[in-house]
C-alpha cells in the first residue's frame, strides 16, 4: 500500500497529464465520429456573445460591399419578376402551401484555413433553426446547420472534410456528391459523375434533387478542370465556387416545411 501511494505521489504530474490527455482525446474522437459535442463549441453563450460583439464592430467596415451585393441580388430578382411570362392566375397561393421558408442571419465567426471548418451565425432555436437545415448566401450554398443553441448556430461549412452534399450538372442532370480536398478554400470537388457523361469546362454545378435539405437548382459554382479517378470509371471535377468563402456576411437558412412528413414517409419504408 505504502509503495502504491509513493508511486502515485512520485508520478503525480505524469498521471495528471495522462488523465487530462485522455479527456481531451476523448472529446476529439467523440466529435470526430459523431456530430460536434453538445456544449463544446462556439454556439455556447460565452463564446457566442464575444463573437457577436466583435462582429458588431467589424461589420461596419464591409457595409458598402454588402449593400452592393444586396443591390445585385435585388436587380436579379426584379429582372426575373418583370420578365416572367404573364399568365392567368386563378388562385392566390396561401403561405401554408410553401414548401421552403427562409430565415436570415449574420455570420459572427468564419474559418476556412483548417480541414474541418465551421461557421457560427447569430440565429438559433429562438428563430426556429434546427439541425440539418441548409444555409446559403445570395451567390450559392455554404453549408448545413450542425448544432443549435438558443441564440446561435454552428454551420458545417462545405469546406469541411466531413461534408458531402448532393449536387448535379446543370445541363445534363447527372448528380454526384460535393466534397472538399482541403487544398484551396475557393475550390471544391464533385465526385461520382460517371465516365460516359460529357463535361465541359465552365459548366455550372447546382444542388441536386436527392437531398431534402436544399431545394433543387441552387447555384454552387463552375467547373474549372476535371480528370478521371484512379479506377477510371468516374470523374473528379474541380469546381470554383460562386460564393467567396473568405467573405461570408449575410446568410439565408432554408427551412423545408415538408421535412417531417418526408422523414415519416421514409421511416415507414424502412
Amino acid at each position, binding site marked *: 500500500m505504502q509503495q502504491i501511494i509513493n508511486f502515485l505521489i512520485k508520478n*503525480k*504530474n*505524469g498521471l*495528471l*497529464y495522462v488523465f*487530462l*490527455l485522455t*479527456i*481531451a*482525446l*476523448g*472529446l*476529439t474522437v467523440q*466529435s*470526430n465520429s459523431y456530430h*460536434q*459535442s453538445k456544449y*463544446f*463549441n*462556439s454556439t*455556447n453563450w*460565452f*463564446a457566442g456573445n*464575444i*463573437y457577436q460583439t*466583435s462582429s458588431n464592430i467589424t461589420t461596419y467596415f464591409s457595409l458598402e460591399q454588402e449593400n452592393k451585393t444586396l443591390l445585385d441580388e435585388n436587380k436579379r430578382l426584379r429582372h426575373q419578376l418583370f420578365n416572367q411570362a404573364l399568365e392567368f392566375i386563378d388562385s392566390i397561393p396561401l403561405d401554408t402551401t410553401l414548401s421552403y421558408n427562409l430565415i436570415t442571419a449574420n455570420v459572427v*465567426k468564419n*474559418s*476556412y*484555413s*483548417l*480541414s*474541418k471548418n*465551421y461557421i*457560427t451565425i447569430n440565429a438559433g432555436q429562438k428563430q426556429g433553426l434546427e439541425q440539418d437545415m441548409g444555409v446559403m448566401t445570395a451567390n450559392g450554398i455554404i453549408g448545413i446547420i450542425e448544432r443549435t443553441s438558443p441564440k446561435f448556430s*454552428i454551420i458545417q461549412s462545405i469546406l469541411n472534410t466531413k461534408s458531402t452534399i448532393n449536387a448535379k450538372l446543370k445541363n445534363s442532370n447527372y448528380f454526384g456528391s460535393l466534397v472538399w480536398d*482541403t487544398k*484551396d*478554400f475557393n475550390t471544391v470537388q464533385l465526385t461520382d459523375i460517371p465516365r460516359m457523361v460529357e463535361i465541359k469546362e465552365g459548366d455550372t454545378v447546382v444542388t441536386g434533387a436527392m437531398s431534402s435539405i436544399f431545394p433543387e437548382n441552387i447555384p454552387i459554382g463552375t467547373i474549372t478542370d476535371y480528370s478521371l479517378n484512379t479506377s477510371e470509371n468516374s470523374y473528379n471535377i474541380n469546381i470554383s465556387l460562386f460564393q467567396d468563402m*473568405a467573405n461570408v456576411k449575410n446568410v439565408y437558412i432554408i427551412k423545408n416545411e415538408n421535412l417531417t412528413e418526408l422523414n415519416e414517409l421514409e421511416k415507414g419504408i424502412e
Partner: protein
Amino acid sequence: MNSKTIVHIIRFFFLVLAQVLVFNNLNFLGFINPMIYILYFYWYPVKENRAILLLASFILGLTIDLFSDTMAIHTVSCLTIAYMRSGIMRFCFGVNYDFQNFKLASTTTLQQITFLALLILFHHFIFFFLEIFSFSNLLLILKKVLIVGAASLVLSLLIRSLFSIQKK
C-alpha cells in the same frame, strides 16, 4: 491572490482574446493563422508547480478550442508541451536550469529563441497531425507545421519584445 497570480490571469485572457479575435482571422495566403498563445508557456515562471501548469494549459487549450470549433486538438497540443516544458528547458539552458535562482532573463537571447521555437515546433506538429489526421497527407502536415510555425515564431518574438521585462 498575489500580484503574480493576477498577472497570470490577465495574460491568459489577453492571449486568448488576441488569438481568437485577431490571429485566427489573419488567414494570410489563405491558411496561415499564427498561434501566439504559446507565449503563455514561454512566460510561465520556471520554478512553479507543474500540476498547476498542466491544469492551466488544459483550460487554455479548451478555451481556444471552444472559440475555434476545433474539437479538443488545441488542448491536446497544449497539454503535451506543458508536460514537455521542463525537458525542453533543460535541453535549451543546460545545467543552469537546475540552479535554484535560475531566471529566463539571465539566459542569452539565442537560448530563449530556441526554447520558444521548440515549444512552437512540438505544438504545431501535434496540432496539425491531429487536425489533418492521415499519414497519406504527411507532406501537407509538414508543410503546414513549417510555414505556420515560422509565422507563429516571428509574431511571438515581436509580441515578446513588445512586452519584454527590462533586462538588468
